[in-house]
């Protein structure tokens, strides 16, 4: 099993979610994060002074998934999240040793 963490632009969240659902992913966990990277933040006015706000609001989507679905899921995320502009985000994949479903005690692929 893998854990896919995708950092994407907030307004692509709905699309990504739908794409993942179509790819067969049923659950996911979403966190609001701030991103620093190549994309420049905006300039904020403060009574005539200008400040560069260099972090950008992003969302992180975490999906635990069985190995055979990984590729499809990543494709789905890339397709849905891509705007072609800098700051579209990243996908990180790590290995999961184990997964448990708290309600039933199921483990492994059953638990996802």
């Amino acid at each position, binding site marked *: 099993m893998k854990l896919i963490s995708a950092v994407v632009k907030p307004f692509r969240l709905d699309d990504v979610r739908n794409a993942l659902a179509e790819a067969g992913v049923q659950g996911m966990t979403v966190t609001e994060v701030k991103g620093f990277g190549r994309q420049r933040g905006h300039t904020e*006015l*403060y*009574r*005539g002074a*200008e*400040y*560069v706000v260099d972090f950008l609001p992003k969302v992180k989507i975490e999906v635990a998934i069985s190995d055979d679905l990984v590729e499809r899921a990543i494709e789905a995320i890339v397709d849905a999240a891509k705007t072609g502009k800098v700051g579209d985000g990243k996908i990180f994949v790590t290995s999961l040793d184990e997964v448990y479903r708290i309600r039933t005690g199921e483990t492994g692929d059953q638990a996802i």
Partner: protein
Amino acid sequence: MRIPSKLLRAGLGAALLWPAAAFSQTADTGDTAWVLTSTALVLFMTLPGLALFYAGLVRVRNVLSVLMQCFSIACVMSVIWIVCGYSLAFSDPMVNGLLGGLSKSMLAGVGFDSVSGTIPETVFVMFQMTFAIITPALIVGAFAERMRFSAMLLFTSIWLLVVYVPTAHWIWGGGWLAEMGFRDFAGGAVVHVTAGVAALVAALVMGNRQGFPMTPMLPHNLTMTVTGACMLWVGWFGFNAGSAVAADGAAGMAMLVTHTSAAVASLTWMVAEWIRYGKPSVLGIVTGMVAGLATITPASGFVGPLGALVIGFAGGLGCFLATQFMKRKLGIDDSLDVFPVHGVGGMIGLLLTAVFSSVASGGVGFDDGTTMASLLGVQVVGIVAVFVWCAVASFVILKLVNLVVPLRVSEDDETEGLDLVLHEERGYTL
């Protein structure tokens, strides 16, 4: 305010010691109703108006400290006002022309039936008290996010007695500036110049916040700031139109010019930002509003709508430029821009009061034997006197307080935020 506008227009106002000398035996219910209402409006300006306006502008870790400062100032100044502040400002002078006496301390002699002008004296005491509350509260913007709470209480308390009370006596209590015919209807000098100058001095004495001006210190909640700004606008009707101390045409005109100036100054700031930076900001438009209101304040009982349009424009543009200059050129961390908005606005307004008092521009005209030029001279004298006295006294008070308790919190505490460090509370637990 203070000089009943009817008298004033009859050319009698300036020389009059008022309201110490009550000239009417029974109060008028309509006038009383309006000043009661105005008192509520001016208290509303500070609590919650100004408190929210300022608190929204600081970082989230200091939001409560700003609310606490405004709130506690309101309480302490009220008590001082009752104990001796009112008496020293408005009772028969101790030192001729410079300071009132102590005959009314603890409000001795202010009873259910005392009358002052056409309103009960209790109402006059209360109305004036709300001015004594908001003036030191305005200074909070200068030292926000770094001043020790106890030092702040000490400083503002002494400042009220040493700066505000004498200035109020000079101008509204029959003191030397009143005798000269100085025109400050609702507090351009008494409130805005004193607060602005004290803010400038405080910012210089205390030093910049850590990280200023490199780190952006953005408002944590602009919706709170806009809410406070709107309350200031509404409350200012009580501040200026209430200063007519009557529900008459003078009050009506004061409300009209006040509103006009606020609207024009808001738009002026908005357009200035739009031209200069490509986008108009919410913070900009509401700051323009405060600038417009501060600028019209001294003029609000003397000018007509035309004067208000020009004064609003001058206030908006002048304060916009002053803000830029202070932040960018001088690098002074008057954190919430008290001096460039209130100080500069108050001074512009005091000068333009002389210009637009003229009947030709719809104003009330000049006192017998006075001209626009002579009034302008008086206004300059008044501004300089108030500026210098306030600057020197504020500096000395701050230095003295610093001997008793350090003005600033430690670096670590500043970083952690005053809310937790000084009050063991956090603003939001969402």
